[in-house]
C-alpha cells in the first residue's frame, strides 16, 4: 500500500467507525464518553492529514480547536456523570430517558 | 554522529542515571541523618556506602507478592510506567553540548508530556491494589498532579518566550550571558514547587502520606516492584533538578576550569540536596491547602508572570 493521503484518511475513518460502534453499543455513560473521544480524535486526525496534504498549518490549528472542545466537553460531561451517578445510582444511559421532570422509575 | 556513538550515549546516560538513583538512597539517608543530628547508615563499607548494595539485595530477595484481589496486569504495569516515563524525560536533557540523546525541537513539550504520563503510575498502582487507602492516595495523586502540571508547563513558558524555542540546547545557549533565574525568578520558584508536587516528594507527598494513608498508592507493593517506585522517585528528583539546572541555571555552562558535564552535575546535585533538605525541614500541608494554593495562588501568579514577560519583551523590541 502506498503512503498517501487516502491511507491516512482511511485510518481516520476506521477509528471514527470504531468510536461510533462504541457509542451505539455501550450503555455505560463513561464508555460513551470514551467513544466520543475516539471519534473526536479520528476527526482531528483527518484534519491534520488534510492540512499536511496541502502543507498548510490550518489542519493542525483545527486539531487544536478539537482538543479545546474535547477538554470542555469532557469536563462538563464528567460533571454530569457524577451527578447522574449521584441521582440514579447507575450509569445506564437507558435509565436517563425522561424528557420531562418525570420521576425515574 | 554514528549509530554506535548514539547507542553509547544512550547506554551511558542510562547507566549513570540508574547509578545516581541508587546512590541517592545512601545520600538521602546520610543527609537526613546529618540534618536531624543522628548518625544514619554508617556500618556497611566506608561511610556506610554499601547500604545501597544491601538495600538492593534486600529488595531483590523479598517475596514478590501480588495481592489476589488486585488487577494483576495493571498492578505489574504501574511501577514500570513511572521509571519509563521519567527516563523518557531525560531524553531531551543536554548534559553537555554533545551528550544529549535527542535534541528535539519540541524538547520542552516532550518533557512536559512525559511528566504528565508519570501520573499513571500512581493512579493505576493505587487503583489496581484494590485497597481503600491506595485508592484514596491515587485519587489525591491524580488531582494533585493534574493541577500542578498546569503550573509546571506555564511557569516554563516565560523562558520559552525569551528564548523563542522549545529546544533545550537553544535554551541553554540563550543563558550564555545571564541565567534565566535572574530574569525569571518567579517562573523558577513556581517550577520548583510544581516539580516537588510532580515528584510527590515531601512536603507534597500527600498521595503516600504514611501517617494518614499508611503508604498510599504503593501500600500493597513489595519487592522489586516497590523498588521501581523507589527508583522512580529518585529519578524524578534528579530529572526535576536537571531541568532546574538546564532551564534557569545555565545547564552545562560555566567557567572553563571545569568541564561542562561537571558543571551540570554540580548544579543538579545542589538541587537534589535541596530536595532532601526540604524533606528534612518542612511539615506536610493539608490536601485542600495544597489544592487551594495551587489554583488560587500559583495559577494567577504564573499567568501574571507570562503577561509581564510578554509585555516586557514587546516593550524591549520596541
Amino acid at each position, binding site marked *: 500500500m*502506498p*503512503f*498517501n*493521503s*487516502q491511507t491516512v*484518511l482511511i*485510518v481516520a*475513518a*476506521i*477509528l471514527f*467507525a*470504531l*468510536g*461510533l*460502534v462504541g457509542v*451505539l*453499543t*455501550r*450503555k*455505560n455513560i*463513561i*464508555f460513551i*464518553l470514551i467513544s466520543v473521544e*475516539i471519534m473526536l*480524535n479520528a476527526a482531528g*486526525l483527518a484534519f*491534520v492529514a488534510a*492540512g499536511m*496534504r496541502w*502543507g498548510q*498549518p*490550518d489542519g*493542525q490549528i483545527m486539531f487544536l*480547536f478539537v482538543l479545546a472542545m*474535547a*477538554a470542555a466537553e*469532557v469536563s*462538563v460531561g*464528567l*460533571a454530569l456523570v*457524577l451527578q447522574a451517578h449521584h441521582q440514579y445510582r447507575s450509569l445506564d444511559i437507558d435509565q436517563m430517558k425522561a424528557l420531562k421532570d418525570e420521576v425515574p422509575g | 554522529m554514528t549509530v554506535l556513538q548514539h547507542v553509547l550515549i544512550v547506554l551511558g546516560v542510562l547507566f549513570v542515571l540508574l547509578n545516581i538513583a541508587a546512590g541517592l538512597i545512601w545520600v538521602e539517608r546520610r543527609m537526613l541523618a546529618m540534618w536531624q543530628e543522628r548518625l544514619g547508615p554508617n556500618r556497611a563499607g566506608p561511610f556506610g556506602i554499601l547500604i545501597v548494595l544491601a538495600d538492593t539485595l534486600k529488595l531483590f530477595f523479598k517475596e514478590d507478592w501480588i495481592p489476589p484481589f488486585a488487577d494483576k496486569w*495493571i498492578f505489574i504495569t504501574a511501577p514500570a510506567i513511572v521509571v519509563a516515563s521519567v527516563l523518557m524525560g531525560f531524553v531531551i536533557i543536554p548534559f553537555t553540548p554533545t551528550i544529549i540523546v535527542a535534541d*528535539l*525541537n*519540541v524538547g520542552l*513539550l516532550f518533557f*512536559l*508530556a512525559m511528566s*504528565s504520563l508519570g*501520573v499513571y503510575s500512581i*493512579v*493505576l498502582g*493505587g487503583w489496581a491494589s484494590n485497597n481503600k487507602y491506595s*485508592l484514596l492516595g*491515587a485519587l489525591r495523586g*491524580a488531582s494533585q498532579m*493534574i493541577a500542578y*502540571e498546569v503550573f509546571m*508547563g506555564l511557569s516554563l513558558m516565560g523562558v520559552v518566550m525569551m528564548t523563542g524555542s*522549545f529546544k533545550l540546547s537553544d535554551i541553554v545557549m540563550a543563558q550564555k550571558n545571564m541565567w534565566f533565574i535572574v530574569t525569571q525568578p518567579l517562573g523558577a520558584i513556581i517550577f520548583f514547587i510544581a516539580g516537588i508536587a510532580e515528584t510527590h516528594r515531601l512536603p507534597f507527598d500527600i498521595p503516600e502520606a504514611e501517617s494518614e494513608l499508611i503508604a498510599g498508592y504503593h501500600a500493597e507493593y513489595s519487592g522489586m516492584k516497590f523498588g521501581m517506585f523507589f527508583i522512580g522517585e529518585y529519578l524524578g528528583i534528579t530529572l526535576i533538578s536537571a531541568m532546574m539546572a538546564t532551564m534557569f541555571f545555565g545547564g552545562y555552562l560555566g567557567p572553563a576550569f571545569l568541564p561542562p558535564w561537571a558543571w551540570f552535575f554540580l548544579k543538579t546535585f545542589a538541587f537534589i540536596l535541596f530536595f532532601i533538605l526540604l524533606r528534612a525541614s518542612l511539615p506536610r500541608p493539608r490536601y485542600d491547602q495544597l489544592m487551594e494554593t495551587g489554583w488560587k495562588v500559583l495559577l494567577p501568579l504564573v499567568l501574571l508572570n507570562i503577561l509581564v514577560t510578554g509585555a516586557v519583551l514587546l516593550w524591549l523590541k520596541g
Partner: protein
Amino acid sequence: MPVLFYIASVVAIISTLMVITRYQPIHALLYLVVSFLAMAMIFLSLGAPFVAILEIILYAGAIIVLLIFVVMMLNLGKDTALQERQWLQPKTWVGPSILCLVLLTELVILLFRSPEVPMQVKPVPMRAVSIALYKEYVIAVELAGFLLMAGIVGAAHISKHRKKHLHRFLQEEAKGPQRRAEKLTMIREKESTEAVLPAEKKPVKKT
C-alpha cells in the same frame, strides 16, 4: 516515514478495538492511552510534532486522567465489569456494528474514488502554526477560550455536591468567625430538611 506510520496505525486501530470491547472501564481507558500514544506517533510521522506532543499532554495526560479519576471516584470495579458483560450481548452490538461497517465501507469506497496524492512529509514549522493561530484564527482562539471558561464554570456548577457534613477540620475552622458558622448551620439545616433519607436509614426511635 511510512513504516512508522503503518506500525502506529495498526497499533491505534487494534488498541481502539480493544477500548470498545473492554468490560472494565480502567482497562478500556488504558487501551485508550495506548491508542492516543499511537495517534501521537501518527502525527509525528506525518510531520506534525507539535500536535503530537499536545495529543500526549492533553489527551493522554489530562483528559484520560480525568476520566480515570472519575472512574476511581465512582469506584467502578468488578461489579461494573459484570454489568457490562451482561449489557454487551451480541444482539445489542451486531446491528449497530453492521451499520457502522456499511458507513466505513462507503467512506473507503468514496476515498478510493478520489485521485491518489502521495503524501509529502514536509513538516510544517511550529512557528507557522503559531502565527496562523494568532493571526487568522485569533477570533476562534478567543472563542475557544470562552468555551473552556464555560466548560469550567459549567462543570463546577453541575458537579457541586451538597455537602451533608463538613470535615472536622473545616468545622473547627468554621467555628472561628461567627457569621460563617451561622451561615453554615443555616445551610445544613436547609439541607437536612431537603435531604431525602432512604427508608431503611431513617432513625428508628427506640421504644
